[in-house]
């Protein structure tokens, strides 16, 4: 099923006045695609999920399932959640505490009024798919976080929904379980080929799970694209710093031009720009620009005459596979992965910056 949002907004009215949660959002999710809504808390991603589920009504704009309008205030159309055949996994799993696992999974089928044996077969099939067939008689309160999460997923998938909605399903799990479940969830979604809308604030989840990602902030979509697009071509400083294992270095710099060669000044150091980056910078039209480089792309070496930026090491962090070095370049600090040779605080370090991984943004 194809899901599409066209200029959808949602404003909550409460005693303290109107709070716009979603402002004119446009996106669409292809059939079987896993589309991630990524953004900090309060950016409206959960509201969009609720709008898709029909738990909230849009204040303006249209929501379509396979081209057919399911929610539009102007068009006076609203299909209630129960009739949209969507399935949802809530952050707190929302299992029915008064029912055991079997009854929890069977609940949507019983409400739909399916035949007894049919329900039992589907429940057992879905339970075994998630490896929880031996928990059917226990109560939610007796299960671990991971088990409860699997029951929630089973309850969602048992009735083969045309749209699968997940609201930060992994956030309550501990780190180890999270990575394992992430992989399994991906495999499950691929095998069922169900259109999925996945909400998270964790950029690692977004990068590993999403076919495509929409980055949100203050109710608006900043950028949509494949994980690679967002990583390599962030269109805004916010996108740049939000995506990636480490926060991107963003330094205020000045653009200087001498004889057709553009270069940028960082603190006391100067860095010549290659032609394509230079033209991009020139387009920005202002002298002050933001220079961005991901720590994992830069390398910090002990001082040597080779080209690169010079800085005094202020901190060395050993993170297992990599060591992260923070150096002060006359006022602005920059983080990079340590290259060969050891560096300790106070040393002078040479930071090599591969020219093709430079990003430039207007200040």
């Amino acid at each position, binding site marked *: 099923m194809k899901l599409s949002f066209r200029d959808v907004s949602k404003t909550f*009215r*409460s*005693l303290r006045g109107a709070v716009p949660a979603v402002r004119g959002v446009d996106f669409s999710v292809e059939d079987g695609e896993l589309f991630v809504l990524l953004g900090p808390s309060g950016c409206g991603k959960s509201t969009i999920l*609720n709008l898709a589920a029909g*738990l*909230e*009504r849009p204040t303006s704009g249209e929501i379509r399932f396979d081209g057919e309008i399911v929610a539009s205030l102007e068009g006076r159309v*609203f299909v209630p959640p129960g009739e949209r055949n969507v399935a949802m996994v809530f952050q707190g799993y929302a299992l029915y505490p008064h029912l055991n696992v079997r009854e929890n999974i069977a609940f949507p089928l019983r409400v739909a009024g399916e035949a007894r044996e049919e329900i039992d077969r589907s429940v057992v099939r879905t339970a075994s798919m998630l490896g929880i067939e031996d928990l059917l008689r226990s109560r939610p309160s007796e299960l671990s976080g991971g088990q409860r999460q699997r029951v929630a997923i089973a309850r969602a998938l048992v009735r083969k929904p045309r749209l699968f909605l997940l609201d930060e399903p992994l956030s309550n799990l501990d780190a180890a379980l999270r990575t394992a479940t992430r992989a399994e969830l991906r495999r499950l979604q691929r095998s069922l080929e169900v259109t999925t809308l996945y909400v998270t604030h964790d950029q690692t989840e977004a990068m590993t799970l999403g076919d495509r990602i929409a980055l949100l902030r203050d109710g608006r979509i900043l950028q949509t694209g494949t994980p690679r697009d967002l990583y390599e071509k962030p269109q805004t400083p916010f996108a740049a710093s939000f995506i990636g294992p480490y926060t991107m270095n963003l330094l205020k710099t000045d653009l200087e031009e001498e004889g057709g060669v553009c270069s940028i000044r960082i603190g006391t150091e100067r860095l010549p720009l290659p032609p394509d980056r230079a033209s991009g910078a020139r387009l920005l039209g202002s002298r002050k620009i933001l220079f961005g480089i991901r720590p994992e792309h830069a390398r910090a070496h002990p001082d040597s005459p080779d080209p690169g930026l010079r800085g005094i090491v202020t901190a060395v962090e050993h993170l297992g596979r990599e060591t992260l070095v923070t150096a002060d370049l006359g006022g602005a600090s920059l983080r990079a992965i340590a290259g060969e040779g050891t560096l300790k605080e106070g040393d002078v370090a040479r930071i090599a910056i591969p020219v093709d991984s430079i990003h430039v943004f207007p200040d």
Partner: protein
Amino acid sequence: MGEDRSFRDLLRGYSFIAPLVAILLAFVFVPVVGTCIDSLYREVTFLPRAFIGLGNYQSLASDPGFRQSLRFTVLFVLASVPLELVLGLSFALLLHRPSPARGALRACVLIPWAVPAAVSGKVFELICNFQYGLANYLVQRIGLTDGPVNWLGSTGGAFFALVAGDVWKTAPFVAILFLAGLSAIPEDLYRQAAVDRAGPVQRFARITLPLLRPVFVVALLFRTIDALRVFDLVFVLTRGGPGGSTTSLSLYGYDAFTGGDFGYGSAVSVVLFLIAFTLSVAYVRIGRFGRELS
């Protein structure tokens, strides 16, 4: 479900509340309004109903019987409510302390609250009986007085018996309120105080009391309004007591109704209603209950 603007949803929302509002309107609001209107009429069984405006209220003002019951009711509130709060607090402290018998203790403390006031009224009437009541037995056994005390015979004795009966029944209820307040105080505050080597008294004064203030205010107002409208205990234990000296406002109104003077009784109950209503508005605002709902 979040904000539902469509008319049908509002209708469904209000249809959920409609039965409650309907019943409250029919059996609480309408009667109160009706009583207020009746209080403006001379309505006696042996005379035609006639509008006399504030006639009933003027008679009330000059009626020593009404003044006596007003005085009694206020004195009763001033005597029983503080006593209930102090006793209730000490019970709560006893109940809050972890001990093997805590469950049983809590159950037995609840019993007085669960017993109907009419029944406890009769029991206290027996306790205060002049010839063979328990009170006289204990009082003489301890040697406080030489002969039997005529409890229900004197205004003071009857007043004391009523306060005792009311405190016996509601101190446990107040204890439950304080218990809730106590269990809401985070444990680590006490652990922190213990680290600062604060003794039990300081812990009580600096942590328990201040944090119980909101519960204290709620219990105080809740009990004051309840004690103002006392009827069951007074009707059964002293039936208005010697010389009508322990007739509560509610009983005074009731006697007027059954005596066949609805207008006068309505006027008495309107006065009581106004006192209780102003206090309850204070109760609702001070209680600040709406906080976590909106």
